[in-house]
């Protein structure tokens, strides 16, 4: 089995698609870091101008100003309940920072890392995994090399398992690469790692109201481990689905197309029919796992971290059952 997995990993590396993915990550993270730096400077300049002070180093003033802005917005009676709860989370965070004397305006590499994963977990990360996983079987069908594999004295399930394991290693590699690269680039841009900084998490929105009973502080380092672990859960699920499509469809282009359109289409669907009970079982709406940590607004009410993880695991398991079932009895006709 080791030799089979080794073969699959060799193939994935030699195909160079992995390096395309790494290249995309490099470009995107650099752009993201530059943009983050730019908007941060602009905000500070604006706040300083409004407050009429020249020295913007006093983070307490800036934070208080932000809090006042938020409170003013909360007074607006036309904000829907969900939006109100999410604003309350922000306000509560700012109050907490002031109370605990934590400076939230400094931006560290650790914060950038978690921001980047939070922004990519529902679309960009799945996209990269699709690029890697959707051709793992279909490429062999397209080029005909599947015949070489299937005529060895190795049972079919072992061949699929080796591909599955190789893909899982690769998913992990992408997550590590995302973490490493975003850390390095952000460290160069923002100057310090900040892994010991505290982050507050544990907000929940229940029936449109903020439930602050479970609020906790964790170090930014630990927070990042949590965020990237959740990222791996998403990568794992999407990887299994991509493998299934790759088994079902012969052409790589079709496999990537099907996965992309279901990823994007499902997200649209979740916006339009968010009242429908079944929507919560679509994998797309459960991809934003990191929002449960940061207290961001969920597209559908009543989701919880446990629920979303269970739904994603169910999708992964279902995809695996279909993959094995089809692959075991498939006829390789042409």
């Amino acid at each position, binding site marked *: 089995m080791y030799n089979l997995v080794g*073969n699959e990993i060799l193939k994935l590396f030699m195909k160079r698609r992995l390096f395309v993915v790494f290249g995309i990550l490099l470009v995107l993270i650099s752009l993201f870091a530059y943009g983050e730096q730019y908007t941060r400077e602009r905000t500070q300049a604006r706040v300083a101008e409004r407050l009429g002070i020249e020295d913007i180093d006093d983070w307490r003033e800036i934070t208080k100003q932000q809090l006042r802005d938020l409170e003013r917005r909360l007074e607006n009676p036309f904000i829907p309940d969900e939006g109100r709860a999410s604003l309350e989370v922000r306000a509560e965070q700012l109050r907490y920072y002031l109370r605990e004397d934590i400076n939230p305006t400094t931006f560290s590499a650790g914060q950038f890392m978690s921001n980047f994963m939070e922004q990519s977990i529902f679309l960009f990360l799945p996209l990269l995994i699709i690029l890697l996983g959707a051709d793992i079987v279909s490429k062999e069908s397209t080029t005909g090399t599947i015949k*070489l594999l*299937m*005529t060895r004295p*190795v049972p079919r399930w072992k061949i699929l398992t080796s591909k599955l394991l190789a893909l899982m290693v690769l998913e992990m590699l992408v997550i590590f690469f995302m973490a490493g690269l975003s850390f390095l680039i952000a460290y160069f841009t923002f100057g310090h790692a900040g892994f010991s900084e505290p982050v507050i998490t544990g907000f929940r929105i229940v029936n449109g109201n903020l439930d602050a009973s479970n609020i906790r502080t964790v170090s930014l380092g630990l927070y990042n481990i949590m965020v990237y672990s959740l990222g791996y859960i998403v990568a794992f699920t999407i990887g299994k689905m991509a493998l299934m499509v790759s088994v079902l469809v012969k052409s790589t282009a079709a496999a990537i197309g099907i996965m992309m359109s279901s990823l994007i289409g499902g997200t649209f669907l979740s916006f339009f029919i968010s009242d429908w009970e079944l929507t919560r079982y679509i994998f797309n709406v459960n991809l934003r796992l990191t929002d449960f940590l940061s207290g961001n607004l969920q597209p559908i009410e009543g989701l919880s971290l446990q629920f979303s993880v269970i739904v994603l695991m169910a999708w992964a398991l279902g995809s695996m059952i279909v993959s094995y079932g089809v692959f075991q009895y498939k*006829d390789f*006709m042409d």
Partner: protein
Amino acid sequence: MSENSSSIEKTVVLELTNVKKTIRKKEIIKGISLSLYEGEVFGFLGPNGAGKTTTLRMIVGLIRMTEGEIKIGGYSVKKDFVKAMESVGCIIENPEMYDYLSGWENLKVLASMEKGITKERIKEMVSLVGLEKRIDDKVYTYSLGMKQRLGIAQALMKRPKLLILDEPTNGLDPAGISEFRKLIRSLAENENLGVLVSSHILAEMEVMTDRVAIIRQGSIVKVTSVENIVREKGITYVVSDVEKAKAVIEENFKGQVHIKGSDQLVAIINEKDVPDINQKLFAEGVLIQYVSKNQKSLEDLFLELTAGDEIV
């Protein structure tokens, strides 16, 4: 070649028993049975869509049979796939390889999926097919002929008992084809390898194989040895008096004579007797318009047996 001749006891390496395949309620393969012995080159012949490739794919487990049994070296492909495949080397249709890997990496990846193929064995195969100079280049830089050679190396490196080749000389130049033919014959004769080969080039089949099966619309129409086909060749005579000519030839020379028309007959005789027969006929007063040698070949047999397929 009679099946029950017990003078030379040969081992069956491949046995198909009433193999059928139905796809979407349409019966593609309608019950094929055949036995292939070690040291034998067996040809699979048929027009496009007759079911050659489907049958070959069922033998190597790429397509699952609906009914019947396939045994390789005594192991059932259905129940004992791994054991059965341990003794098979094959090239199914084009010799596709991982073109983003080098030739050597291809062989190594495939060898790691088999039992007991050493580095030396792979090297030996590379030099057998004459790819030493290019083996470290990526396969996408290879010509079709070189890919074909790599395919042969891949199929032979495990020392199979059965070799399955689908259209094997595709992409080889004439020198390569003749070299390949010699290789196949020598493997069959010296290493007692059973070879199942399909081809659409009839001339090639005629020189390469011991027996051929002609397959048409999913069934085997005829299994015949190449010797038999050669024996069916004869001499055509166009003469003034066919009855008298038949009598003269049959009385004086060993052979059979069939009357084919009012002035035409076919004599199955030793070619060396032709001058003597001609003299005798002339002496008996039979006038000969012309004499010609029949080129009854595999091609004639094939066309005869598969005639009318285009209309169906």
